[in-house]
């Protein structure tokens, strides 16, 4: 893929993310794409990817991301975003806490033929759960 095509693919994904448009998001992944996520675990294929996005947006109904950086090296791309969201729908089967979270998230991606084929999400997952009130943390 050209650099311009990669930039456009990430712009389309961020727009679909901020619209919570899970069908469009799913179309941006290859049929056999693999996503490794602290929240959704390792999941493969469009249906599973759509299902995890739907659960995420169902829990964090005002979730929005803004791009901090996009680093492109051939087919390997790292996008750094800031997520802002409130737990209004309940996460991981728990009742909604109504608490907000804001944190940087890194998406380590491989793209091929205009689609995402692999994605690994790295962020302070435990810190996010503490921010939204799913976990409580105290000094040991």
């Amino acid at each position, binding site marked *: 893929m050209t650099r311009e095509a990669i930039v456009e693919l990430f712009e389309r994904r961020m727009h679909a993310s901020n619209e919570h448009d899970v069908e469009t998001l799913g179309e941006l992944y290859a049929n056999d794409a693999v996503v490794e996520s602290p929240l959704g675990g390792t999941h493969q294929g469009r249906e599973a990817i759509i299902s995890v996005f739907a659960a995420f947006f169902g829990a964090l109904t005002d979730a929005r991301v803004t791009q901090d950086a996009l*680093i492109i090296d051939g087919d390997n791309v790292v996008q750094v975003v800031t997520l802002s969201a409130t737990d209004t729908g309940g996460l991981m089967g728990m009742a909604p806490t109504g608490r907000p979270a804001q944190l*940087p998230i*890194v998406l380590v991606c491989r793209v091929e033929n205009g689609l995402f084929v692999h994605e690994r999400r790295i*962020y*302070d997952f435990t*810190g996010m759960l*503490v921010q939204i009130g799913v976990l*409580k*943390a105290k000094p*040991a």
Partner: protein
Amino acid sequence: MTRDEIAAMFARREETFGEMDAAALASDYADDALIDSPTAGTHHGPAAAAQALDALFHAFADMTLTIEHRLIDANQVVEVLTIEGTNVGGLMGLPASGKHFRVPAVFIYELRGDKIARERRIYDFTGMLVQVGVLKARPA
């Protein structure tokens, strides 16, 4: 710097990290470098970088970084890695717990000339503190 020069610089830094040579690692930072670290907070310049790295190597005397991917895009570099170590020297003013941690991480660098002008480290910092026994977490 050319791509090859950047690759050589970061290969050297990987080796230097293995030797836990804080002074040599710190000498790669610009005088006004900005370093965002969950563990050490935001700090500036080579002297502060050396101090933060010294504290880290004291806390985790067996610390290792395993670089899985390194992306180079003009003056930006990203390392996707696994960090692990054992809290044998105490952390954040607390006594050593003897507990081990292992987390995936991403380090994002911006270069100016042959120096690092900005570095941002993103990983599950809260999860790391739980793993090494500095924090306790439980369902809210």
